[in-house]
Every structure is written in structure tokens, then in C-alpha cells.
């Protein structure tokens, strides 16, 4: 039990949709793996690509950005910008042959408690297969 690899996923959750979605998952007592380390931001557009990169280099096994579905952003269009920035940073990872699967963008609304639980469960499984983030042990970062 103890020595089984338990991924650590940094999750930037937008206050209005995804964070509320996570709360709903909780109030509905849905069980999902304790792999998520939620960081509350007001909008997915607050997530500076550098947050993602430094979380990754600090050894996060994965980084999740979750926000309102397109069109539903509490701030009208924030998530569209978030998506562009994410596309950008992910392309950087891909092009450099780094595991871009460790970065994920998901739209989860306040009413999608079950979806939230699924996303975390399913993503955790995926990361388990990938194994720990090598950056964790690197010294010359």
C-alpha cells in the first residue's frame, strides 16, 4: 500500500466552475484518488504557463488546468485565452520530447461533480502508468 506510486497532480481550478465542481463531487460523497493538490484560482486565465512549467520541474507528476466550458467563463472569455496559452506550452513540451501527457486542460462546470471525479480518477490512472515525474530526482535542473 504505502510504497505504491501515488501520483501528485497539481490542479489549478477556476473558482466558478471547476472548483465548485470539485466541491459538488465532495458533497455528493464521490470517492476519487487523493492524488489532486487543488490550487484555487479565480479564472483559468490566471494560470501563467510558468506556473505549469515550474510545478512540473518541481516534481509534480502532472499538472491539470480546469476551467469553465467555453462560452461559460465567468469572465466571459478567460478560458479561451487559457486554452491558447496551454496549447502553446504543451507544444513546447511536445517539441522538446517531454511527456506532454503530464499536462492537461479540462473543462468542468459547477454542476459536473461526477465528471470532476472521473477526470481525476482517469487521469490519475494514466499518470500511474506513466510513472513518477523524472524531474523529481534531477539535480542539475
Amino acid at each position: 500500500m504505502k510504497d505504491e506510486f501515488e501520483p501528485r497532480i497539481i490542479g489549478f481550478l477556476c473558482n466558478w466552475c471547476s472548483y465548485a465542481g470539485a466541491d459538488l463531487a465532495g458533497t455528493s460523497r464521490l470517492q476519487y484518488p487523493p492524488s489532486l493538490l487543488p490550487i484555487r484560482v479565480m479564472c483559468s486565465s490566471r494560470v501563467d504557463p510558468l506556473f505549469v512549467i515550474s510545478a512540473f520541474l518541481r516534481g509534480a507528476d502532472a499538472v491539470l488546468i480546469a476551467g469553465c466550458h467555453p462560452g461559460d467563463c465567468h469572465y466571459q472569455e478567460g478560458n479561451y485565452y487559457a486554452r491558447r496559452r496551454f496549447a502553446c506550452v504543451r507544444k513546447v513540451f511536445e517539441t522538446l520530447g517531454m511527456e506532454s501527457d503530464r499536462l492537461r486542460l479540462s473543462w468542468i462546470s459547477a454542476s459536473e461533480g461526477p465528471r470532476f471525479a472521473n477526470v481525476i480518477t482517469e487521469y490519475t490512472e494514466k499518470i500511474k502508468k506513466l510513472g513518477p515525474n523524472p524531474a523529481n530526482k534531477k539535480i542539475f535542473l
Partner: protein
Amino acid sequence: MEEKIGVYICECGPNIAENVDIDKVINVVSSLPSVGIVERHKLLCSEDGKKFLKQSIQEHGLTRLVIAACSPKQHEATFMKVCEEAGLNPHLFQLVNIREQCAWIIEDKERATDRATRYVRAALRRIPYHQPLEKREIDCNPDVLVIGGGITGIETSLLLAGPDRKVYLVEKTSFLGGKLREFEKLAPGMESTDKLLKHKIKNVEESENIKVFTNAEVKGVIGFLGNFIAVVKTGENEELEIKVGSVVVATGFDLFDPTKIPRYGYSKFDDVYTSLEFEKMNLNGKILLKNGQPPKSIAIIHCVGREERGYCSAVCCSYSLKFARYLKARFPDVKVSNLYTELSVPGKVYQKFYEETKAMGVDFIRAREIEIKEKVIKYLTEDEKEQNLAVDMVILTPAIQPSSDASKLAEMLKISQDEKGFFAEEHEKLGPVSTSMEGIFIAGCAQGPRNIADSIIQAEAVAGKILSSIIPGKKLEPEARTSEISEALCIGCQTCLEVCAYGAIYFDEIKRVSVVNEILCRGCGNCAASCPSGAASLKHFTATQIHQEVVEALR
């Protein structure tokens, strides 16, 4: 000053206590730097709990506060209020969610406890970087600027105007009433328009709380909810500065220009008219052909420009029925044929109105590829048969489209337009008459095609919004967790300005730096993430605070 952080862990009855070993958490946390006191409580959000919190903050002279309890969406506000009462700046507080996102989702108590500890540590790592944020209050001007003197604008003005709320009604033409003035009767009741309009206009003109400007134009609007300054160019060509707290855009619509579709023969053949031209003819009692003779057979062409514009204008069918009634009333034997692609008579009354009209011998033909020639209409029937219909007058019902000056106005007010060019509501359901700019509202056909009844409903909706949100003497409390831009670090690339949805960032040409208007800013943080040099940051969600949180969570 010596920092002293207080950590309070809520048992939330059994909710947290049962699944998290709170004592264990307390154990770990107590040893952490500058943690002054760590305590648990049965139910912090209860009256007793709040009292206990307030006392502890004061007795221990806490400088920062971390509470591990339920979701911030539940009780952040509650506890911030307690901080305030206790004389601690409410932003020097962090609420850790160990219920919804911990106790309730993890069965294994050991794991849940470990998670809870982690969360609390992360908060403790973050809290030293919290800054006290000041609570600001601004006066809020109750007066209203209504742009557009049509039925919607009139209705809004009448509802809003009162002894403690002035309304400024700006109309670009020389008279109030808009397009409605030309309508003799209204569908489906066929009551005379005067009944509705005349006395409303009279009331407006007589009200000392409504100032009407005709032949006037809004030249510019700056400011924000509660504090707009509008420049109005009056009929006398003088420019007035008007201070208002909110703006209502009720600028109505224009008709689609039928000459864009040559096959309708508009302005090519005689006796082809648009609906508005026909209303006028009817109002003046002169429905006559070019040659002075009364018409014997008339075709009303529906859905003109429906395909081109890409939406149904919702009103054409019903007023076409009204037109048929006009005609039948004047020339009992006249032959009226409606050529439509889709017939739309929704709602509880129009179906009946339609059936009665049909019963009067008015034809309804589903037709495609309509082509108007001299005194004859070619079209394809539903079963692809080519037909010719001889008529001596044609009435086109062109689509309703945004008024020509919509874009100019949208730009001036910094509100957005939808892909069709109508003013865009904040949210179809959550904010149907609000816009991207707080304090600016839209009603009537300016927002999209709708009939008079619906326009009036929107007018009332807007009035309701304003009356309930901008009560005279009210102070506004703008968001404290706004963005800020470091003058020292800003290089003036204005990326932030481009991505801001609220026009909350302006550029200081002299200093060559971007500046946040903290009252317009809603605190999304988009600008902060878009700034390469870290000059823009979001209070309470600064790069450092988030970074610290992440680092500790990963420890």
C-alpha cells in the same frame, strides 16, 4: 511587527472530525514557523464558533489567520467578516478546504489526514505573502442615461424616473416613439397604437424627472457602474456632460435592405414595398398603386433576408397577418397571398390570430426561390412545381438587423456585439439584459429581434435590475482582489490591455505604462498571466503566493 499566525481547524460536526485525525494535523502544524496557536472547534461557522474565533484573534493578537474547514465558496465570506469584526484585515486570512475536497472524498482516514495536513501546510506557506487589501467605497449615482426613444426606451424611462432618480432620454430623430409611430394598429389585438404610445409619450414629456433630448446623439461615455460621464450632443448642437450611474441601450433595429437580393425586384419594379413603407401608406390611408388605383391582389413575401442574415426575425409573420387585416378591412375583395419559407406564430395568442386571418380568405403559400417580375411572382411550390402568381402589389418583410450605428456605439461603450452585430448580453440566461460592462444594460431589438411585448418585458427587466442594484445613496464596494501593474516593471507592451474583457486597463502615455482601473477590474487575472515580465499581478493570487502554495503542496 512579530508575525503570529493562528490556525483553526473545524470539526464541522462529524463531517471532518470523523474522517480526518485533527489532532495529528494539529501536531504537525504546531511545529511550523511563526505559527502562534493551533486549535480545533466543533463548528466554526456557528454563532458560538464565530464568537470564539473573534475572541481568539483579539486575545492572541493574531496577525494572520488560517482556517481549515469547508469550501471557501461556503464560508470564506463568513470568516472574512469575523476577521473584520476582530480588527484583522480579512485578506490576511486563508480558508483551507478539508471537507469537500478532502474529508468527503477520501475514505482512508490516514490518507485524508495526510492530505489535510498538506493543504494546511500549503496555506501556511502562502499566508505570509498575503497583503492587507483595503475595502473601498464609492458613491453611486442613481440617474440613468437611456439611449433610444422608441417604445423600449420610453418604457424604461417611465419605470425608472422618480423624485430621486433622473432619467436622460436621448433620441437621434426629432420625435419619440420610434418605428412604432407609423403603426396604425398592433397585432394580435388590433388595438390602435395611439392607445399604447401617445399617452406614454405624453407622460415622458410631462415628467420633470425625465430630460428628453431629440435630434441628439451620445458622443462619448466613460466611467463605470455608478459613475458614468456621458457627453450628449443636443439638437441645438451644444455638447452637454451628463453624470449617470447606469446606461440603457435601446437603440432598436434597422430593416435588411432588400436591394441586396435582386430577385425581389425592390426599387426595380413599381408597387414593391417594404413592411415599414406599407405601414406608413396604411397610416396615411393611401394604400394605392403607382397608377392611383387601389390594389386588387397583394402578395406579402415573408423571410426576406432570413437566409442571408441567418436567423428568423420572429415578428414578420405576425405583422404580415396584421397587414392582411389592414387590407381586408379597407378592400374586402382584395386577394392577399402570404409567401413564406417558414411560418412562425408562437405563443398563446398568435395561433388563433393566424387561423382567424386565414378564415378571412387570406392565402398562405410555402414557396421557395421567389422571383418578382413586373406584376407577377415566380416561385417553386413545396413539391418543386414552378408557379406564377399575378399580383399588382408586393409587400416585402425584410429581416430585422442591428441599427447602422450599433458598432460605433458598442465601441464607445466597450460592450460586445454578437456575430450578427446585435449587442451581446452578458449571458443568455444568467444576464439576459446585462452586458460585459457592469452598469450598461440592453433592451428591445438592440439586443435581438423581438416583438413589442417582449421589448416591453425587457424594458421592465432592465428597470428591475437598476432599481434593485443602484438604490439612491448606495455606496459601491468594488472588488478588492484586483489586478495591479508595477510601474517599475511595466514596459508598456499593452498585452494586458488587449486581453482585458472589461476595459479595466488603460495606458498612461506619459509614463508609458499600463494602469489598472481598480473599480472596473473584476479580478480574473488574465492580464497577470499574459504579462511576460511579471509587472501585472493579481492581488491575493500573486505569482509568489501561488508558487509558494504549489511548492509546499509538492513537498
